[in-house]
């Protein structure tokens, strides 16, 4: 494996990692705005890294130039569609959620509702055993 191939592999893997992160964000984030944030930011960089890796592997300036134009077009389309979707979401009064996911999760863990449910379950099990 030559140096160019190694660098290209690293770029392709890094690009795929960004795509993976963006996709996880799309699935896991709570509202439209943060999902858009995850998708467009991570995928723009992911596409750029993948295009850079492929350009290195192609070894010709013509193909590298075409890949660069593809990246620019992807950036443009992602930016504008993100802007429009966010506008449409705001127009339908979908507001960004204020609190991040982590703080909500810890709130729930310490909330009395959850501990009482735990007590019920323990009581049922105890009843079955006696």
């Amino acid at each position, binding site marked *: 494996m030559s140096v160019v191939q190694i660098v290209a592999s690293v770029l392709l893997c890094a690009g795929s990692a960004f795509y993976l992160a963006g996709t996880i964000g799309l699935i896991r984030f709570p509202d439209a705005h943060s999902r858009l944030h995850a998708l467009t930011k991570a995928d723009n960089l992911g596409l750029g890294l993948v295009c850079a890796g492929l350009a290195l592997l192609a070894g010709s300036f013509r193909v590298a130039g075409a890949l660069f134009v593809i990246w620019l*077009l992807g950036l*443009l*389309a992602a*930016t*504008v569609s993100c*802007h*429009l979707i966010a*506008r449409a979401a705001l127009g339908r009064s979908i507001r960004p959620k204020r609190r991040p996911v982590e703080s909500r999760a810890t709130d729930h863990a310490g909330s009395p509702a959850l501990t009482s449910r735990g007590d019920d379950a323990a009581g049922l099990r105890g009843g079955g055993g006696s």
Partner: protein
Amino acid sequence: MSLALDALLALALVLLALQVVTGRSLFRGIVMFVVFGVVMALVWARLGAPDLALAEAAIGAGMTGALLMLGYRRLAQHGPLRIRRRPSPGSRLAAPLGVLSMVLVAGLGASALQLPTGAGAAGRGVLQAMPELPIGNPVTAVLLVFRGYDTLLELVVLLVAMLGMRAVQGEAGPPRLRASVDARLPLVGALLSVVVPLAVLVSGYLLYAGGHAPGGAFQGAAVLAAAGVLLVLTGRLRGQAEPGWPERFGAVVGVVVFSVLGLVQHATGAGLLVMPGAWAIYLVETAMLVSIAVTLVLLFAASAGLRVGSR
């Protein structure tokens, strides 16, 4: 490794097809159909058919997806309640129809395996005849030289589809949808000013490339029509009931140029629809590109004519 990729693609295709027909809502079905088209284009590319991959991505996923979305918007506008429920009479037939389709696909696949691959096969005949032809792309040669009649009738089908739409919707046309996106937004204007000239350039290149590499009138027209769809969506182009001369000319120029050239060749004794040279092939392809693009944009605008939208 490549076998794993192919298996993944085939599995994804089957699962996406299932999602298209069994999805919980109509909207989900349409989105899955577009994704199905993109994966299908990847499959064509893996099978070494870049012409089909281009056509599938541009027409199958892009234009058809846009038309389906437009239909969904109209349905949602006219009866928001009707699109929520899935139609029950159709779904009872779904399982038997699916089984029948599977049998059909299996039968077609089995018979495709038994097709002759030797010297008598049509594909080999085309490749052997290629050196005598003025163009280098076998797909374009099949479309215009060996099976010109089929291609001409495909153009007629598109024209009839547009006339059928006119016949169904009447003189006035359907109630107009308001432009989905305001073209006065700075980002939208910037997108249009970059993407539309680029789409014209790319469609011209695809048309030129069709002579010697993957590309051609259908792919170029789909790219051009996509630019037209963007202009319609942003309100820069609006539908109107009465077509002007550019729309009338554009809709018929493909059929007219193709059939007049073919008839002239017939009259001079060369044979019906025989292409006299590379110039004739490029002429017919250009006329076809204009016709297909204009027809697709008119279908999307659901109107007979177009005018430049006012601010």
